[in-house]
């Protein structure tokens, strides 16, 4: 990240002209409003009594109550969904990052037949419409279950397998770029010192690529935490994740908007906080890898 240190320097010795500063203010104000409007609605509505959210919208709650934050756990089994999402997204992240590290190491450090086929194929799976393999995958999981007894359909395991492949292409792609930016001399030196290829990977390449790996992990977790389509088809009551569970507040006769907003906020906090804390790694990782 040598660029980071330079970023602090003023770009030009002259201060930008007033026209630029005003344009900047207007654009930034607009984008800030646009980005934060739903966040404000989410936070303020989650602190409102039910009358406030069933009647005309109010910018300021008529009274502030934290009741919705207690009620959300009873209206639907939110804690249960939360645990499911945490397990699925956590496992998918760990597996996806591990597999991506191995693949990226192979592509970055070895020359072998089929390298280009591999990278192109993996990347092009990104363009497949999810809907095209949703049903066949569903049938494969059901059939594997019927013939081997390994329950993938409706299980967290099936969802973990599916989600980890969603983040895999981007992770591999980004880590290849990142590994390429680490001088080869480093792992060659480690090999001279008696490390095998795995020693060189874990003692030299991985430690040097931590920012890239963190970035990939953040991406993988967010992908798994937010996915809706496969979660809605591949889970049952027992394994339901937040993506589907959150709709439980809305399908009943009364729509408890204040509780929905409270629950949305609760499920968002872990990823938003984690993301904002780690986003500089994502930018650094993209800078070193993907956008080169």
């Amino acid at each position: 990240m040598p660029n980071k240190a330079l970023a602090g320097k003023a770009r030009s010795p002259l201060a930008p002209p007033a026209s630029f500063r005003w344009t900047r203010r207007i654009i930034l104000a607009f984008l800030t409003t646009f980005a934060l409007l739903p966040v404000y609605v989410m936070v303020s509505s989650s602190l409102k009594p039910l009358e406030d959210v069933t009647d005309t919208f109010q910018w300021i709650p008529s009274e502030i109550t934290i009741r919705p934050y207690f009620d959300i756990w009873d209206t639907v089994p939110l804690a249960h969904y939360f645990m499911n999402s945490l397990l699925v997204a956590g496992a998918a992240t760990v597996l996806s990052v591990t597999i991506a590290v191995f693949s990226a190491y192979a592509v970055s450090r070895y020359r072998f037949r089929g390298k280009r086929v591999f990278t192109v194929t993996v990347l092009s799976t990104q363009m497949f419409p999810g809907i095209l393999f949703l049903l066949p995958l569903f049938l494969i999981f059901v059939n594997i279950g019927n013939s081997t007894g390994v329950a993938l359909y409706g299980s967290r395991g099936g969802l973990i397998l599916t989600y980890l492949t969603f983040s895999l292409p981007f992770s591999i792609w980004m880590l290849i770029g990142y590994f390429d930016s680490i001088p080869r001399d480093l792992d060659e030196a480690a090999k001279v010192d008696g490390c095998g290829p795995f020693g060189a990977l874990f003692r030299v390449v991985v430690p040097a690529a931590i920012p890239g790996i963190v970035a990939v992990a953040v991406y993988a977790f967010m992908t798994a935490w937010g996915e809706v389509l496969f979660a809605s088809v591949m889970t049952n009551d027992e394994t339901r994740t937040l993506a589907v569970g959150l709709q439980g507040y809305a399908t009943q006769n009364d729509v408890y908007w204040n509780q929905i907003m409270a629950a949305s906020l609760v499920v968002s906090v872990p990823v938003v906080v984690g993301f904002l804390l780690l986003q500089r790694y994502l930018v650094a990782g993209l800078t070193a890898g993907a956008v080169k």
Partner: protein
Amino acid sequence: MTSTVTPPVRKSGSGADQGDGGARRRRLPRIPDRIRQGGLPYLLLLPAVLLELLVHIVPMVIGIVMSFRELTQLYINNWGNAPWRAFDNYKIAVDFDAPLGEALLHSFYVTCLFTVITVGLSWLFGMAAAVMLQENFRGRGLLRAVFLTPYALPVYAAVITWAFMFQRDNGMINHVLHDQLGLTDEPSFWLIGDNSFIALVVVAVWKSWPFAFLMLMAGLQNIPRELYEAASIDGAGIWQQIRKITLPSLRPVNQVLVLVLFLWTFNDFNTPYVLFGESAPEAADLISIHIYQSSFVTWNFGTGSAMSVLLLLFLLLVTAVYLVATSRGRKGSGAE
């Protein structure tokens, strides 16, 4: 390129010198070094390849096979026996005079329009934000975090919030447009009818512009600062610098970014699904949700698969044309 050849040589040398340590690593004496070295990359790729096969490649092939069969709920548990129908499913899907094909064509138009508007606006917002935050000033880090928040929020939580904002009687949008600004004669419906298209675009842009911002911000960091310094010494103003240095330097990033945004937006399922539920209003009937409905709601998987295959072919075609066109343009202008 020589570095990829050297490791085996060095390794066998060091193994001979090291005695014990070297012998321990050579548990498999029958396999020559050359083959072990040759096999290693494949071993490293194996988990990724197996998973891609299981979750993407094999299902895709099965999906293509399914598109040639009559796969209704009668055959769902025994889909190997579903009757072969050759191109019947495709004929149904592209028979634009019949209701099914007409609906698909309409959905395709809606998706194209939606994609063009959403990608365009997302790119524009992301570019504006990245350029405006390129230079350091007080509050820059905070704004960066603010702009990335929509990207960080889980899709369903964010889109549910938008659904609440777009409610007719108790939503924020109508409160502002009707009650506070008096722009409409009466509160509009946003989640049904023609307005639903606008609602969908607003939510999709809100959700995807931070990604454009993120990529472009990363791309900007690779532009050498000397370029700007040289330009400003030569008397180029800030607007000129943006036009002459920033935009051309971002070309390679833009090539990837626009393609990725296009593919994600075109295939978007989550946004309409959470915003409207299982059946989207006609004006916002995106292709993904249309196919989902044709498959899961009406239990006609053969036709649904045929539609998915057509969608994939279309995406492949657009991607290929796009890559050829943009790569040639790049070579021609000599930007490399």
